[in-house]
């Protein structure tokens, strides 16, 4: 066998794992969809998504409390995390001397490696007592501490590393000469950031934010531990919520004992998967346009 034909043989062997890892996503969507069909055939999709009555024993499956719970917690976390992360990333990319940058970056990597259950522990030990004993009484509200605010705070800390490291990378794509041109015209460092770096990278920053959202949607354990898990549409940040991932994780045990319950939970999984995939596609699309412009 010549070396070239060996090349071709090995190449076709390598094709197998490559196909396996690329079609995994499709297989998951198909399997979850197939499992969700039972629940989807009971009521029109809109009714399922907009009904707020969740009583599995009576056969009532309304996803609105869970969808709203997910949106509240995720939105709060992102509102808290986006400005802090972007400003940190700007500092690291545009201001920090190399020595400080090289010390802080491993620390942020470390933050991204901490298991989510530890963040949950942190929430229970620090944030919940804080809300229960200080924040809520200060505002005259009675709260157990297990609420959207706690979930949002924990989740915000968890998305710091991904937002910071991705936006740092985006800022680094701006050529140094462009900053120098602005500085040479007498701009202050912040003006160079505002008028050159941010102007040039804002599609990338948007993509980073979308990716951060999709990461935050799926976070399960930490949020589940602090958010209270009450299936009601929340109306303030001091209400408990029940996000979609928590719904799936908490109820898999009894899902085989109630008719349609398994299908209902798998539809929740499909919903979550769909949201994450759509957000990821949006981010990829923005990044693709960005690359084309370059």
């Amino acid at each position, binding site marked *: 066998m010549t070396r070239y034909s060996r090349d071709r043989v090995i190449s076709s062997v390598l094709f197998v*794992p490559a196909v396996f890892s690329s079609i995994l996503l499709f297989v998951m969507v198909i*399997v979850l969809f197939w499992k969700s069909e039972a629940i989807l055939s009971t009521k029109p999709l809109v009714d399922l998504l907009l009904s707020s009555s969740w009583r599995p024993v009576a056969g009532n499956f309304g996803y609105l409390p869970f969808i709203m719970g997910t949106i509240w917690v995720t939105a709060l976390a992102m509102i808290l995390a986006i400005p802090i992360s972007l400003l940190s990333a700007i500092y690291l990319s545009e201001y920090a001397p190399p020595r400080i940058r090289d010390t802080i970056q491993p620390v942020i990597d470390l933050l991204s490696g901490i298991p*989510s*259950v530890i963040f949950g522990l942190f929430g229970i030990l620090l944030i919940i007592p804080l809300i229960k004993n200080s924040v809520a009484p200060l505002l005259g509200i009675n709260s157990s501490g297990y609420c959207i605010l706690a979930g949002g705070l924990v989740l915000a800390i968890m998305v710091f590393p991904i937002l910071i490291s991705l936006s740092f990378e985006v800022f680094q794509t701006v050529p140094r000469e462009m900053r120098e041109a602005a500085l040479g015209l007498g701009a202050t460092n912040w*003006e160079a950031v505002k008028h050159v770096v941010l102007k040039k990278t804002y599609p990338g920053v948007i993509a980073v934010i979308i990716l951060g959202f999709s990461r935050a949607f799926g*976070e399960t354990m930490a949020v589940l531990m602090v958010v209270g898990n009450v299936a009601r549409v929340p109306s303030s940040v001091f209400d408990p919520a029940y996000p979609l991932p928590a719904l799936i994780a908490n109820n*898999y045990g009894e899902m085989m004992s109630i008719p349609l319950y398994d299908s209902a939970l798998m539809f929740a*999984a499909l919903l*979550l998967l769909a949201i*994450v995939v759509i957000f990821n596609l949006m981010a990829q699309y923005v990044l693709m346009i960005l690359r084309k412009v370059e």
Partner: protein
Amino acid sequence: MDRRIAEERFFKGLMYVSLFIVLGCLISVFAIVIIKGIPSLNISMVTETPHGGYYLGGGGGILNAIVGSLYLAAGAVILATIISIPTAWYLQNFPRSSRFASSTRILLDIAAGIPSLIYGAFVFLIMVFLQTEASLFWGIITVALFLVPLLTRAVDEVMQTVPKKLMDASYALGATKLETVFHVVTKQALPGILTAVLVAFGRGIGDAASVLFTAGYTDAIPVSITDPVATLPLAIFFQLSTPFPEVQERAYASGIILLVIVLITCVGSRYLSKKFTKYCVK
């Protein structure tokens, strides 16, 4: 002029505050878990399996979960590596701008963004279909599945940073495409590949949501791949859900153990990648 300088100062101040918040959060995560966990951390936590009535405050430790997590993460990382590295090799066969390769990369990126819980639910459905019970085997499969996209993309990214000139030199000597990928690209990317594998190991150890459905839970150390297996994050979660304060305190101590394992993985990956960098062409 004054206004511009004030603006500069204002935003610079905000940046310091932001960075302070980020670093402060990290430190307080570590500090609070350590402060609350230290009092109930003792040697039997890491040397004994739970005795009868452990979750009511009885004696014993969480050796079952420590060993279980290590088995699970090691098995999953090995399996994921077996799939990921060939996939990354395959992707290197295409020109860096090729449409096939870039769409595969996008697919993998999306798969890497899917919450691990969904992978757990997916494998759970397969298990229900095959009518099997939760076990170490299915836990490994689940974690491996969600590590594959992450690991493939990480390895692929490292391989793509290998300078084109190095590959051209290899082609010029008459090497085929794959020979270049195996002997030049892989060797050059080895430190990065090691880091990626260890980061994946850390993810595997720390993930609880995916194995919730698939690995089961037991107080014994698994002796076969068909046994159910306890994991450290779930041990923390379950101890925390008991109503007894002394058991909850053990959850904090278990948190310290998990943090230590993650830290060792993190430091180890830095050390190994530094050590292997000396075999690379600079």
